[in-house]
């Protein structure tokens, strides 16, 4: 019961925050609503037993990414932007997307929710390890290669940001 209730609260935060993010006039407000949405998602992670990801979401995503965005929003002057027309003329594409998803939902309705069933799983013996240990285990065994590539990815991001942001010599 508590779980169910918290799911709806967090889901509302995630979705409502998302809607507010994309409709705010002021980018700073958008960023603040984005934080709400991300917090909602983090709560959902907790509900689904992903403690490590919950922490990563808050520290990395909210603490890192959104702050970075906020920083840039403050850096570039946005007063004028806030007064300008906010939406471009591609609304019809967006409408088409909504239509596609609507069709998809209608299709699922017709088929019944059974169509969304996931494959069954063999019962997994509880290992007794905490979530973080298990994540670490998998990350450094099965997914060591992507982990290494990700380091390269972050290096490129740093180099890229430096290249882009430095003044012309």
């Amino acid at each position, binding site marked *: 019961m508590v779980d*169910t209730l918290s*799911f709806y609260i967090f*889901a509302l935060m*995630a*979705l409502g925050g*998302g809607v507010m*993010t*994309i409709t*705010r006039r002021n*980018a700073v407000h*958008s960023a603040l609503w*984005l934080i709400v*949405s*991300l917090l909602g*998602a983090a709560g*959902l992670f907790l509900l*689904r*037993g992903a403690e*490590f*990801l919950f922490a*990563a979401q808050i520290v*990395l*995503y909210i603490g890192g*990414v959104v702050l970075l*965005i906020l920083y*840039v*929003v403050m*850096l*570039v002057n*946005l007063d004028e*932007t806030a007064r*300008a*027309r*906010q*939406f*471009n003329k591609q609304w019809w*594409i*967006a409408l088409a997307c*909504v239509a596609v*998803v609507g069709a998809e*939902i209608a299709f699922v309705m017709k088929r019944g929710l059974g169509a*969304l069933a*996931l494959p069954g*799983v063999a*019962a*997994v013996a509880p290992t007794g390890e905490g*979530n973080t240990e298990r*994540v670490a285990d*998998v*990350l450094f065994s*099965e*997914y060591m290669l*992507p982990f290494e590539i*990700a380091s390269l990815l*972050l290096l*490129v991001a740093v180099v*890229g*940001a*430096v290249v882009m*942001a430095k003044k012309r010599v």
Partner: protein
Amino acid sequence: MHPVTNVHYMVLSVALLLVGTIGVLTRRNIVIILMSIELILNAVNINLVAFSHHFGDVHGQVFAIFVIAVAAAETTVALGILIALFRNKETVLADEVDLLKW
């Protein structure tokens, strides 16, 4: 109340994907477009975590970590380019970026 199932998570995730997509396609402000992309990535992560829970393993969670890392890297570079753009031309509206035909 019904117990929460994977279907709940999937519906939420599709909804968030939709919100993000609409944001990308309709907003003019580049920063807000970036935020919409973050919403899409969050929809992905919600999916991954829910499936991960269903399968009782942590592969999905590990995937989600990578998604967060990629999001961070993309944002960093995007903001770098944005600053360079802003230096040359004081706008962050996507369709005022019009030297090249959109």
